[in-house]
């Protein structure tokens, strides 16, 4: 419909985005690995239950993990071959999770989902759930659940901000698969019964803005280049002017936010009948020889990915799954690609955060930058004093963990770590209280 500038939001930070490393590299298909380790818990909610046994022959696209419970997602095989093991592996978060190990037989036999006959909203949602699609922006919330809100929504917002430094996978997809994304968006809008579609793109992606402005029924909103513009709450505010109240979800203001990669998965599931078996990730950082945008099969080992990109340098100090601001540090490369992975970073000393924390000098930079308008220094001090309820009073539960405070902290305080810790403690306290009340 139109191109317009997004609403200005004054709080946030400007990060050194380092996108130049992979900005102009087309997405490559990484050859299928010899063995894949597919996690049964690649989403928020209950882990899928393995439905294959050791020794079973599986084809690419065959269901191997069945969703269990209301919030869960199916998992499909990404290669054809033999199931050689079902075992527990500790993931990047330090949790033990079931993984199905499949040895690739190289035949690349593929099975597809059934052809769709009716395109009613409930059929679309059912298909999206069946194909194991989850929010691919990082959280991994099952998309089918997100598309079945209790109240009628009135706006669908597509998140093309990609505000994380280094990552370019969404940007490359927007350039290379514009049409597929558009179709995915249309199906999602149909499923939600929404006419108003907004796509928010950061101003540093002019080509993507140009491509999407061709579509008559998309409202393209140019967002200021600012971190964290891709946060749901801020994206909604900057594109529609609505403020999501504290502790509420986007659907409370009638909005649904979807990620670019999710839209492609929706298109593939509905038009091509392909379940979600791969992810596009940016392999970047100064420590990697050949930074790349890669399409990898789920369950590919990070070791294989790093090797495919030419290996890591001697000076590597940090490995990160995801973006540098919110991703998880890896203790080893024995991790396997998941649906929600959008980056694998190999950071060298001069770009990574390796400084030791010093005393807080009370400069207030954290409070000036916090996109949620919290005062991180006060929260941290109450956490350090062991007063978690005070931290709650200062609003730690509103924290996005975006890292804006810690990014600019001159004393290098581990602020986000404190907040995570406090959140866990508060949950513990509340659980205890509710138990006591129950008695």
């Amino acid at each position, binding site marked *: 419909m139109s191109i317009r500038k997004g609403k200005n939001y004054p709080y946030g930070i400007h990060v050194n985005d380092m996108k130049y490393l992979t900005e102009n590299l087309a997405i490559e298909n990484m050859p299928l690995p010899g063995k894949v380790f597919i996690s049964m818990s690649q989403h928020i909610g209950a882990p899928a239950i393995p439905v294959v046994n050791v020794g079973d022959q599986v084809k690419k696209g065959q269901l191997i993990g069945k969703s269990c419970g209301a919030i869960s997602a199916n998992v499909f095989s990404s290669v054809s071959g033999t199931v050689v093991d079902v075992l527990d592996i500790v993931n990047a978060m330090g949790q033990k999770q079931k993984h199905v190990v499949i040895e690739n037989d190289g035949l690349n036999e593929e099975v597809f989902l059934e052809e769709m006959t009716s395109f009613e909203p409930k059929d679309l949602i059912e298909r999206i759930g069946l194909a194991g699609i989850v929010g691919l922006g990082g959280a991994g919330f099952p998309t089918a659940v997100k598309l079945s809100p209790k109240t009628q929504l009135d706006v669908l917002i597509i998140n093309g901000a990609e505000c994380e430094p280094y990552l370019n996978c969404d940007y490359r997809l927007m350039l290379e698969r514009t049409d597929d994304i558009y179709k995915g968006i249309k199906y999602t809008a149909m499923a939600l019964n929404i006419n108003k579609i907004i796509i928010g793109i950061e101003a540093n992606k002019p080509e993507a803005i140009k491509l999407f402005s061709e579509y008559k029924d998309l409202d393209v909103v140019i967002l200021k280049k600012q971190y964290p513009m891709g946060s749901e709450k801020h994206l909604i505010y900057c594109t529609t002017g609505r403020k999501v109240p504290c502790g509420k979800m986007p659907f409370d203001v009638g909005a649904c936010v979807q990620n670019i990669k999710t839209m492609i998965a929706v298109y593939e599931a509905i038009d091509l009948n392909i379940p979600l078996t791969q992810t596009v990730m940016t392999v970047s950082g100064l420590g990697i020889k050949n930074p790349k945008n890669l399409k990898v099969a789920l369950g590919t080992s990070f070791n294989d990915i790093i090797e495919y990109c030419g290996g890591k340098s001697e000076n590597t100090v940090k490995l990160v799954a995801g973006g540098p601001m919110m991703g998880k540090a890896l*203790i080893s490369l024995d991790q396997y690609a998941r649906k929600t992975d959008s980056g694998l970073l190999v950071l060298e000393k001069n770009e990574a955060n390796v400084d030791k924390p010093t005393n807080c000098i009370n400069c207030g930079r954290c*409070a000036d930058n916090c996109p949620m308008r919290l005062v991180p220094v006060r929260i941290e001090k109450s956490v350090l004093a062991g007063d978690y309820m005070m931290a709650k009073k200062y609003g730690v539960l509103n924290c996005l963990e975006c890292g804006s405070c810690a990014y600019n902290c001159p004393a290098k305080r581990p602020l986000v770590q404190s907040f995570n810790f406090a959140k866990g403690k508060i949950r513990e306290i509340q659980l205890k209280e509710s138990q006591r009340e129950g008695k």
Partner: protein
Amino acid sequence: MSNILFSTSPHVRSGNSTKKIMQNVCISLLPAVIMGIVYFGIFALLTILVAVVSAVGSEIVYRLAIKEKFEDIISSFDYTSVVTGLIIALIIPANAHLYIPAFASIFAIVVVKMLFGGTGYNLVNPAAAGRIFAFISFTTVMNTFVAPSIGAINSSVITGATSLQSFLNDGSSLSSIDLLLGTGVAGCIGETCKIAILIGAIYLAVKKIIKIWLPIISVAVAGIVAVLLNGTIDAFLPAILSGGLLFGAFFMATDYVTNPVTTFGNVIFFILFGALTSILRHFTGYETASFAILMMNVLVPLIDKISTVKPFGYTKPQKEAK
């Protein structure tokens, strides 16, 4: 894999650090240092050196005394004591004996800063406290100001507060240009040349270390309060251009550690600081910027308490139906 670091997000960080900020503050004080030396000669340089060396020295000795390793002290040295020493030297009169800056610096570092836990834990501005310590201990010397050796010299030694005081007492006033350049104005080493202070302040603002509009507010408030107290508009320029107000507002009140956290809190802090300086000046006749800073510093916890910000998307909690 042993050299791989494992920590929480964010994994990248901006290049700023406490050390860099303090180095920049040192650089921003250089114009005032240079003009101090130009105006007051080699003795000013000696005063500055003594203050800085005793500040840095006492920090190192203190940390050695509490059994920190020397390498750790060197690697974690963050230049805050250099800043404290420099500021102390710049806010004492040029004819002060050399033991005065030394005493003030040692008091500021050991008693005010290190005993409370070092950088970031001091309750009040060390430099202001050091100056007041010297002021109370050596009142005569600290309240005798000499005029620079160049420029139109009114009288070589003035006892009393500021040219504001002399303006009010005998009606004779220096021109604003003289006040701005500090020529012919009796004052402290670094406080005399206002141009140098402003250059330093602009440097800090460009480096985004201070929000320059905050000290400007306090200076303006101080001027307005002086006008109200004296009942004449002529008091405005002498009030803001004399004494330690400009230096205090730009370099001492902006000290992070002893400031409120939020911008809103800082606005309260700086308005009250400006007003308090003028009021104290009017009723005591002494140079009171340091006292005002100290008083405001102890008010900071209170200001912090009232200056909360509403989180993004804050809604008033709905009253539960009874």
